[in-house]
C-alpha cells in the first residue's frame, strides 16, 4: 500500500506492507536513522518523534495510520552546523553517555518545553496555572524516555539550560 507523509518539511510517498511501523519507515525506507529502535514496544522512548507536533513513540504507530500526517525527527530540528538550543545544551552539559537514547530525549524534551510554555500542567505540578521546570516536573514529564546509561541528572541540566536560552 501507499502512504504520503511530510517528514521534516519534505513530502514522501512510501510504498509499504500494512505491517510497517512508522519507525521502520523512517529508518529503513527514508534512511533517517537518527531515530532509534530500543524496545520496539513503547517502553523506552528511543523512537520518539513529533507527529503533527506532538511527541509519540514511532514504534507504536503503523505507517498506514498516518497518511497525510507531518512528522519531525531529530534530523529535522537541527544539523551539526546549526544545532537546536536543546542539542547544543546536551553537548555542553554532556547529557548522555552512549548517546543511544539522546535523539528520543531531545525530541521528547522539544515537545515538553513547548507543553510547559503553553501552560499544560502535569500531575506533579504545584501550580496548575504556571507550571515550573523543577527537577520533579522534568522527571515526570520525561518519564517515557529511559536512559540505560542513567544520564538523567545531566539530561535535566541540559533541558534546564535550553529552556533558559529560549526564554
Amino acid at each position, binding site marked *: 500500500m501507499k502512504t504520503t507523509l511530510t517528514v521534516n518539511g519534505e513530502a514522501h510517498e512510501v510504498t509499504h506492507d500494512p505491517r510497517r511501523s512508522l519507525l521502520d519507515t523512517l529508518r529503513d525506507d527514508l534512511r533517517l536513522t537518527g531515530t532509534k529502535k530500543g524496545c520496539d514496544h513503547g517502553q523506552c522512548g528511543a523512537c520518539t518523534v513529533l507527529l503533527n507536533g506532538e*511527541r509519540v513513540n514511532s514504534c507504536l504507530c503503523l505507517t498506514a495510520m498516518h497518511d497525510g500526517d507531518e512528522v519531525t525527527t531529530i534530523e529535522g530540528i537541527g544539523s551539526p552546523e546549526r544545532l537546536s538550543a536543546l542539542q547544543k545544551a546536551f553537548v555542553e552539559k554532556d547529557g548522555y553517555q552512549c548517546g543511544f537514547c539522546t535523539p528520543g530525549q531531545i525530541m521528547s524534551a522539544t515537545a*515538553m518545553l513547548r507543553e510547559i510554555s503553553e501552560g499544560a500542567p502535569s500531575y506533579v505540578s504545584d501550580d496548575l496555572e504556571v507550571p515550573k521546570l523543577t527537577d520533579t516536573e522534568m522527571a515526570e514529564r520525561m518519564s*517515557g524516555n529511559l536512559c540505560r546509561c542513567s544520564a538523567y541528572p545531566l539530561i535535566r541540566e541540559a533541558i534546564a539550560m535550553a529552556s533558559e536560552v529560549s526564554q
Partner: protein
Amino acid sequence: MYSFDFARPTSVADAVAALGQEDAQALSGGQTLIPTLKQRLASPSVLVSLSAIADLKGVSAEGGTLSIGAGTTHATVAAEAGAYPALAELAGQIGDPAVRNRGTIGGSIANNDPSACYPAAALGSGATIVTNSREIAADDYFQGMFTTALEEGEIITAVRFPIPEKAAYIKFQQPASRFALVGVYVSKGAGGVRVAVTGASNDGVFRWSEAEAALAGDFSAGAVEGLAAPSGADMISDLHGSGDYRAHLVKVLTKRAVAKANG
C-alpha cells in the same frame, strides 16, 4: 506480526461495515494492540483503523454529564475534561506523555486490561458505554479480565460519565509501566457511593460493595477503617506483589481516595 489488510474508514457506519468481515479487528491508538500484534498474540485478517473518524473524537460537558468520544486520547481528556477533575487527573497519569498522545479511552475500555485505569473510572462513576448499536451500563459491561459485553464487530463510540458531587482516583503504580498495581476510584453522587477497584482481581475491575455500604452513611476514611480488607485469595499474584498485599492495598487506597475526594 502476521500479515493483515488495512482499512481506514472515515465514518462509524463504514467502520462497522468493514468490521463485519471475518476476523476483522478495530485499531484505535494502537498502544496495546500494536505490541500485541508484534508478539503475534493477535492475527486479524483486516485491521480497521478508527483514527480517521472525526465523530469519535472530543470531550463535551452538558447538564451534569461528561461525554467523551471513544477515539479521544488520554492527553486530550487530561487537558479538556475539567468539568470532571478526578477523571482528567486519572487520564493525565496513564503511562507517559507519548502513550497519552496516542492511547484512547475507547481502546482502554474495549481492552479491559485488569490493571488499566479507565475501567475503574467507568465502573466507579456508573458510566454508560455507548456503542454503534446500543448503550450499556458499566455494571453490565465489564465481565472479567479482558472480557466485556461487546459483541463481535461492535464498536464503542463514546463513554458518558455522570459528573458526581465528589470523586477521586488513587493509583499505586507499577513504576515502570505506570499501570495500576492497585487503583481505587471512589465517587459520591446522585447514584450513591461507588468504589471500583482495578489492578487487584483476577476477574478484572470490581466494585467493593462492603466499602460502598459503609461509605453510604458516612463518607469518610474512618468509615472504611473498621472493615476487613477483601480476601486476597483470588487476587493477582505476580512479581510486583502477592494477592494478600494487593488486598491490603485495596483498603489503604480506598481510605486515601475517600480522604482525597473530601478534599
